[in-house]
């Protein structure tokens, strides 16, 4: 079944797929970030695949010079009981990815959280505000160069 999924993606987007691997039956496909919205809507709408549920969407900071961030999409086909994981690479200089909120509404808060924690912006997101941190906070806490205890005095406390 993983072969079928991979073949379908490659057939539809031959230039987008950058690689894939399988670990204990879980398929991961690495794709170009420019095509992520198109691939996602294809995976949802294809009658044979029907990946109609976005399980999770998150960011990863690999902390390397090229392609520092990853955005990971985990999706599930309710009809086929299949899981699939997509990954895109995002640069530090221009951390912008197309939003998939138009494909799955569930992506809304996940993308907000990813933006809040890593500073990755999602183009076309209807409401890209911070999720946990204060609106005017200047840092992104889950980046590897962010200190564990935070930046001193970056969040004001009430006066004692």
């Amino acid at each position: 079944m993983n072969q079928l999924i991979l073949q379908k993606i490659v057939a539809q987007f031959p230039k987008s797929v950058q690689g894939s691997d399988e670990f204990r039956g879980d398929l991961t496909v690495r794709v170009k970030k420019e095509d992520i919205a198109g691939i996602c809507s294809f995976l949802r709408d294809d009658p044979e695949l029907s990946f109609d549920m976005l399980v999770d969407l998150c960011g990863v900071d690999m902390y390397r010079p090229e392609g520092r961030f990853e955005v990971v999409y985990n999706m599930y086909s309710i009809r086929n009981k299949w899981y699939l994981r997509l990954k895109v690479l995002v640069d530090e200089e221009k951390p912008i990815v197309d939003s998939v909120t138009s494909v799955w509404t569930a992506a809304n808060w996940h993308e907000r959280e990813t933006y809040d924690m890593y500073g990755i912006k999602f183009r076309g997101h209807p409401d890209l505000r911070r999720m946990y941190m204060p609106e005017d906070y200047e840092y992104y806490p889950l980046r590897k160069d962010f200190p564990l205890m935070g930046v001193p005095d970056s969040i004001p406390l009430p006066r004692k």
Partner: protein
Amino acid sequence: MGLGSLMADGFVTTRLDEVINWARKNSLWPMPMGISCCAIEMMATASPRFDISRFGSEVMRFTPRQCDVMIVAGTVTYKMAPVVRKIYDQMPDPKWVISMGACASSGGMFRSYSVVQGIDQFMPVDVYVAGCPPRPENLLRALLELQDKVGRDKTIGTLLRGEKIFIPENGPAERMSPTS
């Protein structure tokens, strides 16, 4: 005192501070600031098994205007700190604070950018309770400690004698903090 024969039955002589403190300390109304799992133990403290009403503090009020002691039970994040402080500021004086559990007292196991490492960074605390979460007996012990503290208050007598009392900008005198 030798006055016993002059007075009819039903009279007691005492000091004003003593009688006011006695009244105050035996009906401390808590503001249950339950923001994490410590709140479960706080609820257990109010349950019949542990019965906080034995010590006069069963009247948990969810409006700060009617409370004497705030029980901060749980992890206070930086985002929550202004809220806790605002509710504390809305309580009428005299008021006291019990910092319940490791999180409220020191940040606890959350050594992290998002959690305030001890609520005494932004508000006065009278009694700290150890534990994660503290057992109800532990909270009751803290209440008794607080009652002792309230009983030692000399404010009324000092005022009546016309002496000036030192009141810091943000709260009455005799507030304990780990630095003082």
